[in-house]
C-alpha cells in the first residue's frame, strides 16, 4: 500500500517538475531590454526579411482601449500583416464598427492584390465577467470565455469560411503576434495562448501596451500580463522606472 502511494507521489513530482520546466521554458525572458538605438537598427534589417505571410490578433476592448489601439495602428501596412483577426467583447458594437472602419481605411494600401483577398476575421467573445455579475457564477463565465478564446486561436471559425477563403487561411490559424492594450478579455486570450504554447502548437508572441491614461500605476490587466507578455510597453517614463522589464518608447498612441 505504501509502495503504491510512494509511486503515485513520485509520478506526481516528476509531472510537476516537467510541467514547471515546460512553463518556464515558454515564459518570456525580458531581462535585457534592448536600448532604443538598437531597436531602430534591427528594424532596418527586418524590412528585408519580413515574412511574406503573417497573422496578428488584435484584442479590442471598451471605448478608450479600442480608440488607442487604432491610433497606434495608423501606420501599419497590410502587406506586413497579411492576416488580421480582431476580437471584441460581446455587445461592444462600437469596437466592431471601429475595426470595420479601420479595415476600410486599409483598402487602398495593398501593394499585392492577393493580400487584399485574404480579408480579416472579426470575432465576438463572451465576457469573462459582466458588470455586476455575481462572483459565484464568475468562474463559469470565465471558463466559457476561455473556451471561446481557444476556439479563436485554433481558428475554429475557419471551417465555416468559403472554400477560397479557407485556402487563404490554411496553416495560418494561430496568430504570430497577439497585440493587446488593457481590456480584461486580453488576459483570457493570452492564457489560452499559453495553453497552446505549452503543447508546442504555436510560437505566438504577445505585445502588451499599457493605456496612455496610466501614468503612475499599471492597470489590473497590465499587472496580470506583465510576466506573460514578450514585449511590454508603457507610455510614461515613470512607469518604466517603476516596473522592470517594461519598455518606454514614448506616446505610442500619438
Amino acid at each position, binding site marked *: 500500500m505504501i509502495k503504491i502511494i510512494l509511486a503515485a507521489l513520485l509520478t506526481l513530482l516528476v509531472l510537476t517538475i516537467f510541467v514547471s520546466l515546460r512553463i518556464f521554458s515558454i515564459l518570456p525572458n525580458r531581462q535585457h531590454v534592448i536600448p532604443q538605438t538598437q*531597436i*531602430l537598427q*534591427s*528594424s532596418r*534589417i*527586418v*524590412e528585408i*526579411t*519580413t*515574412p511574406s505571410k*503573417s497573422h*496578428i490578433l488584435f484584442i479590442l476592448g471598451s*471605448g*478608450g482601449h479600442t*480608440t*488607442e489601439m487604432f*491610433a*497606434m*495602428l*495608423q*501606420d*501599419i*501596412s497590410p502587406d*506586413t*500583416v497579411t492576416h488580421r483577426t480582431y476580437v471584441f467583447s460581446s455587445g461592444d458594437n*462600437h469596437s466592431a464598427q*471601429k475595426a470595420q472602419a479601420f479595415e476600410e481605411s486599409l483598402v487602398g494600401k495593398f501593394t499585392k492584390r492577393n493580400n487584399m483577398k485574404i480579408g480579416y476575421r472579426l470575432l465576438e467573445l463572451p465576457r469573462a465577467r459582466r458588470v455586476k455579475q455575481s462572483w459565484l457564477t464568475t468562474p463559469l463565465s470565465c471558463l466559457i470565455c476561455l473556451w471561446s478564446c481557444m476556439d479563436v486561436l485554433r481558428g475554429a471559425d475557419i471551417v465555416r469560411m468559403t472554400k477560397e477563403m479557407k485556402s487563404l487561411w490554411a496553416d495560418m490559424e494561430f496568430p*504570430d*503576434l497577439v*497585440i493587446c492594450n488593457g481590456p480584461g478579455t486580453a488576459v483570457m486570450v493570452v492564457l489560452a495562448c499559453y495553453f497552446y504554447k505549452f503543447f508546442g502548437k504555436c*510560437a*505566438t*508572441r504577445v*505585445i502588451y*501596451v499599457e*493605456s*496612455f*491614461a*496610466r*501614468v*503612475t*500605476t499599471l492597470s489590473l490587466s497590465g499587472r496580470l500580463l506583465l510576466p506573460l507578455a*514578450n*514585449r511590454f*510597453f508603457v507610455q*510614461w517614463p515613470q512607469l518604466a522606472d517603476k516596473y522592470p522589464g517594461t519598455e518606454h*518608447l*514614448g*506616446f*505610442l*498612441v*500619438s
Partner: protein
Amino acid sequence: MAPEPSQKSDRKVFITVGTTNFDSLITAVLQPAVVDLLQSQGYTTLRVQYGQGVELYQSLYTAELEGVLAKSSMSIGGYAYASGDEITNEIKTSELIISHAGSGTILEALRYQKRIIVVPNESLMDNHQKELANEMAKLNYVIKGSLINLSNSITKSLDFGYKHFPRKGSKMFSEVIEEELDHVDKDKMYG
C-alpha cells in the same frame, strides 16, 4: 443637435464631458461671468456636450445668461451625446476645448493641435484622470483647469505656449511590429 453655423468668422468653444457625469463642469462654464469672458476673447459659438445633464443645462440658461449672450449675439447649442465622428468634427472646427480629463478627448484635441483646458473630475473614485491631467499640464501639452477658477485658465489659454504633441508614436509601433514578426519567423525556424 443644433444646426452647424456656417459663417467663416465662426470661432467656437467646445465643452465636453464625454460619457461621464460631470454636471459641475457644465455649471462652471455656463456662469454668466465665464461666458462673458469667452465673449470678450472673440468667441462666437459655444457648443456643449453635456451628457446626462440635460435638465441642468436647461436650468442654467437663465435670463442673465441670455442677456450676456445677446451682447454680441453669441450662439449656444447643446446635446447629450454624439458619435465619435461627430465629436472629432466638433474638435476639428473648434478653437478652444474645455474638457473632462478623458484620455480620448485629450488625444483627439492634441492630434488637431487645439488649445485645450482639461478639468479633472475630483468626484471620480479613481484618480487616473487627475494624474493624466497633471502630467500633461506639466509637459505644457494642456492647461489644467479647476472648477473654481476656470476664468483664470481661459485667460491663460489665450497666450499660453502650448507644446507641440509628438506624432511619431504609430510609426514607432509599426517598427516594433515588424521587428516582432521577424522574431516569430526565427522562432519558427529554430524553436
